[in-house]
């Protein structure tokens, strides 16, 4: 099932070309094109030696990060063959094609298709297709030039691998050297070997185990799951475009056809989805995608189109779109649209489904995570007593929340209390006047204090000043504006210097 392809170098042209990397003993060749290989330049050679073998050798330093990025980008584009895809090593892509080859006209036709598409893009590629990951790897990396083809089936697995070099088993260099010392160079030589005897020859049990594990994995005796780049979606629908789409309107039209198809499938499963992803596969081996989210699981095509309405502008068709894919994730049951009649008549509580739809419409226009709710939290500290959480379709329950206590709480709260300069009549009394944001406020009436002790059971200090008790006052200035201010600490409480004053909220 898995196929793997090797990718990297710029192999075009007849000039020998290598990529080099600075090592401990100077520059070394890490990759060479065909012209360089025919001149005797192999990866691992010192660059100075390579120069003597091929005097006109061109070289560039290798950029491994960019290589890895390009390989991952290519892997994402290869999702047009299968959603289960992974990157392995520096040069390989693993694809799980289980049950998918017939969509491309059989296994051989699919391999041809892949080869043509990748070669057209200027990427030299070697393909291998086998029932196990390990075997596919061996075929892709070591089968060129041998009589084994690029494809083996279940029955041909053991004989197909027998003649391949030992390096096809993905072993460490030390293990390969050791095996070569024993005279074991072909994979087939390991088939009939006495496993205990082999283990005794290795210096450690784990090293011997690694060899046998790789062998078992290649032969399908031990499972080796593929760890895909992206989690496969719960549902997906595809729209191949026989003629590449060049205009953004084409994408819009394509989505209008994909959305009902996906919703039909969701509805058939009796569920809806909360996250959607529209991917376009361009003809230049690149993929672009936009995502949209709903507060509650939905399977309504018009609502789905609303979610994507303002986001399609970010999708550039580039040199043409060959395939569009719409995926759904985060599936769950769709809550029925109808509300019980008695709730409507009584008029109690908001229409939760209606609010969720509205939240989606606003999110679609403004961006993700803009619609929030106030979630009550069990804490005495005002700044911790409630949480501004992203709305996810569930309204908070404030009826059962702890009441705020007898003293009123301000309508508006500052995220962090702001510092004040205060003149108080007596050291532990309410202020007479205070300066906030450089304006002097004369206090006309004051109410308090309400003492809020620090939460000693929590690790670490919190807020300005940390572990001091706060005395909150409700004060009104001469203009009738009301403030919630507090003094942190007391004189002589042994927890720092003189107490400090802060403003924490504003009353209506």
């Amino acid at each position, binding site marked *: 099932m898995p196929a793997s392809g090797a990718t990297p170098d710029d192999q075009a042209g007849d000039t020998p070309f290598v990529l080099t990397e600075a090592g401990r003993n100077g520059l070394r060749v890490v990759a060479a094109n065909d012209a360089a290989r025919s001149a005797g330049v192999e990866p691992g050679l010192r660059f100075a030696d390579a120069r003597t073998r091929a005097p006109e050798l061109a070289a560039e330093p290798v950029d491994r990060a960019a290589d890895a990025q390009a390989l991952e980008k290519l892997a994402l584009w290869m999702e047009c063959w299968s959603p289960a895809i992974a990157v392995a090593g520096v040069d390989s892509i693993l694809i799980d094609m289980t049950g998918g080859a017939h969509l491309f006209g059989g296994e051989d036709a699919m391999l041809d298709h892949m080869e043509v598409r990748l070669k057209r893009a200027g990427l030299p590629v070697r393909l291998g297709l086998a029932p196990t990951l390990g075997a596919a790897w061996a075929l892709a990396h070591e089968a060129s030039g041998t009589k084994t083809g690029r494809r083996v089936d279940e029955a041909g697995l053991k004989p197909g691998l027998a003649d391949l070099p030992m390096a096809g088993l993905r072993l460490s260099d030390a293990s390969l050297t050791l095996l070569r010392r024993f005279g074991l160079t072909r994979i087939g030589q390991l088939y009939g070997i006495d496993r205990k005897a082999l283990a005794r020859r290795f210096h450690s049990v784990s090293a011997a185990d690694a060899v046998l594990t790789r062998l078992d994995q290649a032969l399908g005796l031990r499972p080796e799951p593929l760890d895909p780049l992206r989690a496969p979606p719960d549902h997906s629908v595809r729209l191949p475009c026989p003629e590449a789409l060049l205009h953004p309107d084409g994408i819009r039209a394509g989505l209008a056809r994909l959305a009902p198809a996906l919703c039909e499938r969701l509805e058939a499963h009796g569920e809806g989805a909360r996250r959607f992803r529209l991917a376009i596969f361009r003809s230049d081996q690149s993929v672009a995608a936009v995502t949209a989210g709903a507060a509650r699981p939905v399977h309504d095509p018009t609502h789905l189109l609303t979610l994507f309405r303002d986001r399609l502008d970010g999708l550039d068709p580039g040199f043409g779109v060959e395939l569009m894919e719409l995926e759904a994730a985060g599936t769950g049951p769709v809550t029925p649209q109808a509300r019980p009649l008695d709730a409507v008549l009584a008029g109690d509580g908001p229409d939760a489904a209606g609010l969720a739809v509205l939240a989606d419409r606003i999110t679609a226009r403004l961006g993700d995570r803009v619609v929030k709710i106030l979630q009550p939290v069990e804490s005495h500290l005002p700044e911790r007593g409630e949480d501004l959480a992203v709305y996810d379709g569930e309204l908070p329950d404030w009826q059962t929340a702890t009441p705020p206590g007898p003293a009123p709480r301000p309508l508006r709260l500052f995220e962090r209390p702001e510092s004040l300069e205060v003149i108080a009549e007596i050291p532990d009394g309410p202020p007479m006047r205070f300066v906030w944001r450089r304006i002097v406020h004369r206090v006309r009436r004051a109410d308090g204090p309400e003492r809020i002790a620090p939460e000693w059971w929590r690790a670490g200090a919190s807020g300005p000043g940390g572990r001091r008790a706060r005395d909150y006052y409700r004060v*009104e200035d001469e203009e009738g504006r009301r403030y919630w201010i507090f003094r942190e600490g007391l004189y002589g409480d042994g927890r720092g210097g003189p107490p400090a004053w802060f403003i924490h909220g504003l009353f209506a």
Partner: protein
Amino acid sequence: MSLKPDILAPVAGHDLPFPYGLGAAGVHELAEAGFGDFPALTGLALAAVRDTGRTGGLVWIRQAALAREHGRLSGRGLAGFGVDPGRMLLVEAKGRMEVLQAAEEACRASGLAAVIAELDDMDFTASRRLGLACEASRTPLVLIFPHTRSGATAAQGRWRASARPSAPHEHDARAPGRPAWRAILEKSRLQPGKAGRVFDLEYEDATPCLRLVSRLAARPAAPQPRRIGAGLAGVWRDTG
């Protein structure tokens, strides 16, 4: 939605629980009289919306810059003010345009008790557009502006409001009393002749229901607010 009682009809201001239909269907503007009255406007908008008695969700849209200046809404404060924070959605918009977009979407939705938006300014076209959005759903939209707000508007009216020193607390003369406001009807489409009038308003928090009352006896010229159930039993004074 048609089963829900439609308490308010946007007719002449005399029948409305709040003067000149503030909080009833349509767009209403509240502007600060001076810097620092924003929390007072917050309370006034909530009181007006609460007093219309409409059920359903509440959408509060805020502009990031104003939220930094004046703090965010507090759930426990709302609960103390008689508004259930469990039915409120908060939308955090970055700029003025985002506030207007979100407000338009919210006004088109049906079944909301009210939409309240804080923003720094808007032009006439925007106000007209919001008015059209509100028309079909009959959702009240209250816009809260800083004191710099001026210019033409297509809203039902614009109030310029400020906090007012409160009466002494019943039980403790040194403590602040009930919240009080002074509101000037700057513009009114329903009653253009009443523009420029000044209203002194006070909040009654002895019962869970909000009401707007006056400390003084109502003058004969003052319109009377309509009662809603047993809770709303207030009068307010028209000093203009």
